[in-house]
């Protein structure tokens, strides 16, 4: 079911055709007006026939009104199509993102995906609206205007036939140059903005180091480049209109000159010359519109490509089927993992994040995972709910390869608490109930109590109905972590994954929390930096640079692992000096 963005226009084809028809009416009026004008002059004024002047004048007014009505109705249809089209794109892109495997999503920076859903859709919407109103009008006016001029008097119209193609080529070349330059401006502008952001973020340091002079000169450097590029670009663009106008105006002068000659030999009427001059001025107007239209097409195309990139990705199979509940045994067998095109990585591309990982966790066991940043702890966690798939090797849950599990079924039995404790705007209750749609108040409260957050919630202004997030109460880091844990508890998970999610809790709270875990009969993996936490678990997994370098209880590791000894020493406040 992969559809390109443009295919969402299909249901609105009829409406589009109506809009175009109405636009053609407007165009026809615009093209007939000069003819009527010529008739007023030729049949009325020149031969002193007042009835003709009234007749053609009346028709001129009628068609003007007709064009207006057509234009108004066109507006409704065009807006209808573009709004619905935009809605459908947004819907499908959003759905797509929701249904993509996490490994695909994580390749894109968040801001990048957000832009696709917001700015890019708006851009396409505006262009669609324009296409149904003026985008086609400008080229059509140029074509029909020239055609009408030829019909009126082809010899005089020859001037137009020569000039217009030249102008079109000129326009396209100029647009290319302009577009490239605009991109350069944008880059420079981004750089200036980046310098400002960097500086603001570090104001205290800048002041402390007394580095304002070097900061200012860094900024001026970027600012200077922006100025130079902006000036150059805008000046190139300003060259466009005067040249275009001049050539067109010379064309009109030529029409007059040539018309004068034709008149003298009696090959054309005066009205005809006036009409052609009239067409020429209208074409001039359309040509200057054309450059603007090309510009906005180029932008819409870029947006369209970005959206299609998302729409063309393969979805994850998320059909749920009922299977038995898990017992919670986890086993990693020779697991290797590396990220695909992880281009943001400053180190060499795609190095192994996990190398030959082997371990088994029995149902109900509590295992602490320790190791440096980048040692692969979080990656191990992400393999369990199938957010990523191992590059090599296998992961088993209850002795069944997780490849053979249905994602939804598997995830519904896992409580994953990530490092960032991401909460959503809404009430506290909603945030906890997030873990289980339709959770009862009792279940929510029990989860909150177990996560040691119940007492804090009661102190909030509206207790469980307190709104959190951007517009609501600000929570402390520890409170956020505990809410995220409550959200996992309410699921009654068979496997609980805590990714350094107790770091902001004090000893006492953490101890209580770990005790509660025993009640839940779930297999627990917990990433931690604290020896005290590790001590309370059944087993410890020590990672370094993607490999397991130690496995066992606290006491065992103290004997066998040098690294573990070092960590222990540093955290108990003894022996660091001896290592210096």
């Amino acid at each position, binding site marked *: 079911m992969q559809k390109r963005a443009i295919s969402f226009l299909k249901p609105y084809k009829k409406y589009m055709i109506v809009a175009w028809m109405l636009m053609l009416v407007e165009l026809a009026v615009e093209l007939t007006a000069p003819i009527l004008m010529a008739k007023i002059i030729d049949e009325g004024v020149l031969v002193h026939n007042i009835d003709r002047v009234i007749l053609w004048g009346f028709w001129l007014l009628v068609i003007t009104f007709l064009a207006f009505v057509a234009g108004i109705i066109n507006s409704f249809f065009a807006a209808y199509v573009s709004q619905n089209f935009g*809605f459908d794109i947004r819907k499908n892109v959003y759905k797509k993102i929701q249904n993509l495997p996490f490994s695909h999503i*994580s390749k894109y920076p968040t801001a990048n995906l957000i832009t696709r859903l917001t700015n890019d859709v708006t851009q396409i919407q505006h262009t669609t609206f324009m296409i149904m109103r003026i985008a086609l009008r400008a080229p059509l006016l140029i074509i029909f205007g020239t055609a009408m001029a030829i019909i009126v008097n082809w010899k005089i119209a020859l001037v137009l036939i020569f000039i217009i193609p030249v102008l079109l080529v000129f326009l396209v070349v100029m647009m290319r140059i302009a577009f490239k330059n605009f991109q350069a401006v944008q880059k420079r502008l981004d750089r200036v903005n980046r310098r400002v952001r960097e500086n603001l973020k570090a104001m205290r340091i800048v002041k402390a180091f007394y580095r304002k002079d070097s900061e200012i000169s860094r900024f001026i450097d970027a600012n200077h480049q922006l*100025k130079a590029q902006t000036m150059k670009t805008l000046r190139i663009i300003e060259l466009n209109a005067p040249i275009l106008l001049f050539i067109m105006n010379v064309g009109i002068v030529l029409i007059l000159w040539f018309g004068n000659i034709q008149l003298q030999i009696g090959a054309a009427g005066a009205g005809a010359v006036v009409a052609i001059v009239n067409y020429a001025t209208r074409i001039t107007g359309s040509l200057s519109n054309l450059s603007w239209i090309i510009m906005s097409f180029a932008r819409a195309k870029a947006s369209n490509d970005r959206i299609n990139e998302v729409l063309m990705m393969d979805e994850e199979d998320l059909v749920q089927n009922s299977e038995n509940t898990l017992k919670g045994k986890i086993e990693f067998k020779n697991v290797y993992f590396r990220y695909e095109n992880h281009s943001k990585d400053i180190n060499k591309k795609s190095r192994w994040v996990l190398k030959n990982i082997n371990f088994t966790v029995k149902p109900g066991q509590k295992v602490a995972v320790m190791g440096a940043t980048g040692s692969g702890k979080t990656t191990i966690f992400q393999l369990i709910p199938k957010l990523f798939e191992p590059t090599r090797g296998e992961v088993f849950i209850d002795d069944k390869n997780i490849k053979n599990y249905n994602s939804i079924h598997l995830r519904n039995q896992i409580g994953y608490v990530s490092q960032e404790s991401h909460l*959503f705007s809404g009430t506290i209750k909603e945030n906890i109930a997030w873990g289980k749609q339709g959770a009862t108040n009792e279940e929510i409260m029990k989860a909150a109590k177990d996560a040691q957050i119940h007492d804090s919630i009661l102190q909030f202004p509206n207790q469980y109905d307190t709104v959190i997030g951007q517009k609501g109460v600000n929570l402390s880091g520890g409170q956020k972590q505990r809410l995220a844990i409550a959200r996992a508890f309410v699921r009654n998970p068979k496997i609980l994954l805590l990714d350094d999610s107790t770091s902001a809790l004090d000893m006492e709270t953490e101890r209580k929390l770990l005790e509660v875990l025993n009640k839940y009969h779930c297999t627990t993996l917990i990433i931690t930096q604290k020896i005290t936490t590790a001590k309370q678990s059944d087993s410890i997994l020590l990672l370094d640079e993607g490999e397991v370098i130690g496995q066992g209880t606290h006491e065992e590791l103290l004997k066998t692992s040098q690294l573990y000894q070092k960590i222990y020493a540093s955290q108990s406040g003894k022996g*660091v000096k001896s290592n210096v």
Partner: protein
Amino acid sequence: MSRRHHRNVNPEDLKLTRSKFTTIGKLWKELSNNRGLLFLVLFLVLVNTIFGILGPFLIGYAIDQFIYKQTLSGIIPLLIGLITVYFFYSLTSFLQNYWMIGIAQETVFTMRTRIFTHLQNLPISFFDKRQHGEIMSRVTNDMDNISSTLNSSVIQIFSSVLTLTGTIIFMLWLSPLLTAITMTIVPLLYFGMKWITNRTSKYFKEQQKHLGLLNGFVEETISGQKIIKSYSQEEFVIDEFLQKSNALKKAGFWAQTISGFIPKLMNMLNNLSYALIAFVGGMLALKGDLTVGIIVTFTEYARQFTRPLHDLANQYNQLLSAVAGAERVYEVLEEEKEEIDEIHAAPVERVKGNVEFQNVSFSYGRDENTIKNICFQVENGQTVALVGPTGAGKSTIINLLMRFYKPQSGTILIDGKNIQTITRESLRSFYGFVLQDVYLFEGTFRENIRYGKLDATDEEVEEAAKKANAHSFIMKLPNGYDTKLTEDGSGISQGQKQLLSVARAILRNPSILILDEAMSNIDTVTEIKLQEALQRLMQNRTTFVIAHRLNTIQNADQILVVYEGEIAERGTHETLLKKKGLYYQMYKQKENTIVV
């Protein structure tokens, strides 16, 4: 030609207030720095407008003389005249823009540099009171808005006004009656536009609101994608998204439809005046009051006449929103600078690092003292730990020591010298820092370490990195010290950032060291390296440590327990434990770590 994207305009910005006039005056002054060139541009606009009016007039004349009367001679000189007029018309319109862009960009460049420089000179309290995003948007969005407006608006407004008056004068001269008829479209235009904008403003507001809601929701759910997936909540968020998206669609439909009437209205009025001129003009020509050439000229003028009206209406909104942006920029520029050093302040070469606080009190607001009567003395080379709950006043003490703020009473002495008598620049050069947030900028690792001492040699930089335990990880990078760091230092861990920060401090070789090393985000292995590096750094320097892991505190020569703005307890780890006071309680509560 427009390169303006659809900006989210705040409706408040579009209100015309008295202060906006003052701001326009200021902007004008800004532009007047290039007065000579600016007058040249305005002169060119005038010439350009005249040529613009002359063109259609000559065309009409040519039609009368050579098309209807078919005069035989004299057409060539007239046509050459016409081409000359058009040539100068195009030339002046290019040159006016060419120079105006120069003036505008020069002005924007100066304003940007000025606001940035001014930010560097503002007291830290300015930044403490505001959010970064807010200041950021003034330097970026608002300046960008001013930039694009200055480029086009000045010329547009002048030329619109001139064209309008010029055209009307010419039209009156040609035929007062036809002019009066053409003018009838002005009230039609006015009421038509009013009818439309009255409706659209409501729908645009609504659209803006729904767009904001939708964007907020998208941002939240896309950044929380990992949680949504792991909790299988895809369907749930899709439903909510569709609701929000639908509301946006409804508001957007009416906003777009009705605002789509504007060009149609303009078009109709253009055609209407065209028809009226042809009709009435034709009648008049019959009576012989008018020539056909004048009718042609008139139709051309009528077109020229509605365009500036439309442009002015467009420019008005753009101008107002740019002026609102300029108002915000000036607000920053008019903030008081950090106090300049006292007249008797002098630079000091080197200090040993004896620090003394004598009865120092300070408050950020007026109502309450943040710190009260702080007294303590530190010998050079000693380590002082400041502990206490958040908001107790630990950072305030450091802020005062740095002269970020000035104490309301009491004196701070370094080597027996009041710090008010030392220039800020030399005072701050004695300090080194390792703070919670590490400032890394876009540049190489080498440049980032060198930030501590701008004239350090490559050897010095590497030496410092070695001492900071940063050398080994830097050497593993593809280009070693010349590897580029991205803006926010993504790609290296929090702990590694801290190591770079230590390297910086080592390079600086300060007499007094300030550590605010909350380690919650640092992994255990890097932490060990960091501890080592810090130990090296602290040797023989006066060190202030804010709140930490036990071992740093345990080894401190002096622990100051700050509580509610006062020093509640002081002593060494052992004496304080024996005292069984606040320190003892904190120690018990957290067992191994004192996270404050």
